[in-house]
């Protein structure tokens, strides 16, 4: 029953978003450019490190860093940048009332729609990126710049599960911003702050393992690592066995905390909700 109620808006929106092929292609081109820059810069750093201190002590090999960068670029759209535009627009123009009138749990309803929004934008971009960085670059004779295959089938399966958990966390963060929009009327302030931390702490700006060693424990525990860094480290074989399960447990922990926060905030915001006009 619940699956039908919340699955239908999820499916409808996912199907609609997958139609925007030009937007996906434009996003993909931009991400190729950024990815290319990041990869060349990292390669130059690794080259310099090899000449001076050696690369044995570095936490990731160059090939692993390159794979990490391409995956992060391909999955850029799955990370939370702000509120869901449909929902923030509904808050602004008052049609949030319709959502409140539906005999469904508003939080879960928004959650399903936001999840579809994140996934629907990310899937085509990811597919194009896998084709370009995984297959295209290798075919063009640029194998050393290419995205590498995962560390075995088990790592791949575990990385997929972990990525699913990352999407769950991302949706929960998006929903917190959605609720913030009810209080402040705009998601602009929250988006700016969120985007700043997210880009740095999810592994998008640089792979998290490359940050200084003293920051490692903090970086692995904080919630933004659950978005990209955790699935990527599983994909690269950096996490194995029990460590994979512990990392996933941490993802589930952050997901439940964020859902709890979102639900609490929504309950309070809705209790005071006033819609002007008619």
């Amino acid at each position, binding site marked *: 029953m619940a699956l039908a109620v919340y699955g239908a808006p999820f499916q409808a929106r996912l199907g609609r978003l997958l139609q925007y092929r030009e937007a996906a292609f434009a996003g993909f081109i*931009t991400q190729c450019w950024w990815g*290319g*820059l990041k990869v*060349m*810069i990292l390669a*130059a750093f690794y080259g310099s*490190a090899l000449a*001076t201190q050696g690369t044995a002590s570095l936490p990731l090999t160059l090939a692993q860093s390159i794979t990490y960068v391409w995956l992060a670029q391909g999955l850029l759209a799955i990370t939370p940048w702000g509120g869901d535009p449909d929902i923030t627009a509904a808050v602004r123009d008052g049609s949030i009332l319709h959502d409140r009138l539906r005999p469904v749990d508003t939080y879960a309803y928004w959650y399903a729609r936001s999840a579809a929004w994140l996934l629907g934008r990310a899937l085509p971009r990811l597919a194009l990126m896998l084709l370009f960085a995984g297959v295209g670059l290798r075919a063009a004779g640029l194998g050393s710049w290419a995205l590498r295959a995962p560390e075995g089938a088990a790592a791949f399966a575990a990385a997929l599960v972990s990525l699913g958990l990352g999407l769950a966390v991302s949706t929960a963060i998006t929903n917190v911003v959605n609720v913030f929009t009810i209080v402040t009327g705009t998601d602009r302030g929250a988006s*700016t*702050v969120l985007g700043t931390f997210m880009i740095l702490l999810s592994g998008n700006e640089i792979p998290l393992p490359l940050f200084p060693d003293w920051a490692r424990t903090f970086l692995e525990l904080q919630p933004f690592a659950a978005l990209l860094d955790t699935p990527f480290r599983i994909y690269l074989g950096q996490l194995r066995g029990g460590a994979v399960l512990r990392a996933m447990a941490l993802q589930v922990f952050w997901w439940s905390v964020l859902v709890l926060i979102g639900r609490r905030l929504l309950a309070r915001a809705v209790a005071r909700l006033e819609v002007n006009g008619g």
Partner: protein
Amino acid sequence: MNAASLYLRCAMASIHGQLQYPGTLLSIGIGNLMATATAFVGLWARFDRFGEIQGFVFSEIVLFYGFVQGAFAVASMTTRGFEVFGTEFLRRGDFDRVLLRPRSTVLQLFGHELRLSKAGRLVQGACAFGAAIALLPRSLTIVDTALLAFAFTGAVALFGGLLVIQATLSFWTIESLEALNALTYGGVEAAQYPLSVYQAALRRILFYAVPLAAVTYHPLLIVLRHPDPLGGPAWLGYVSPLLGWAFFVAAIGLWGVGVRRYTSTGS
């Protein structure tokens, strides 16, 4: 009234308007400062991990960083009219009114808004630049200072030109082309590192097509007294910033072509 004083008056009016909401201005400005500071943290983390990049140390790269951030900030503060051209002027038909006024369209769009909230990027770029200059092993000569000022105008002109081209393309597409952000924001990212880290094809693009290296890398090498790892001639940085201005002139020319083919969207 001549063009310069008219522009000045528009700019003052715009600043006066923004100062009516000091709280908003301050919070957006701080948000802008924070958002652009993430790039600096990423830069620092890379050097903490790897030590140096192709013979360039952190303080030298900070000079590149502060310089290019500052130039982009000035360009984006002054070109707001072009940035919102597709959405606010073309689609709403407001460009018709601009055409009716007896002044050049370029002047009017530059005068549209002088956006103070983008000063966050300028502030942190200026801090980084100041720190990098202070860390130089010697003080700047008069020639260095003049070269920095000249190159900075070239860099602002280049970024301004890119933003004008982005607006110009909306004569054809009606929508603003986000894809060009790869060249503006991506260009800021690319110009933070020495040109020598990029592959040959990209290096040529960054010098001849979108001459970022001509306005940042080559003049800054002279100021740093750093020999060019690519073996370019020593005098190159003294003249190459002119390419930034040439790019701007070409962008304005393209703008003229766009204006001539403009037909109102009606209503």
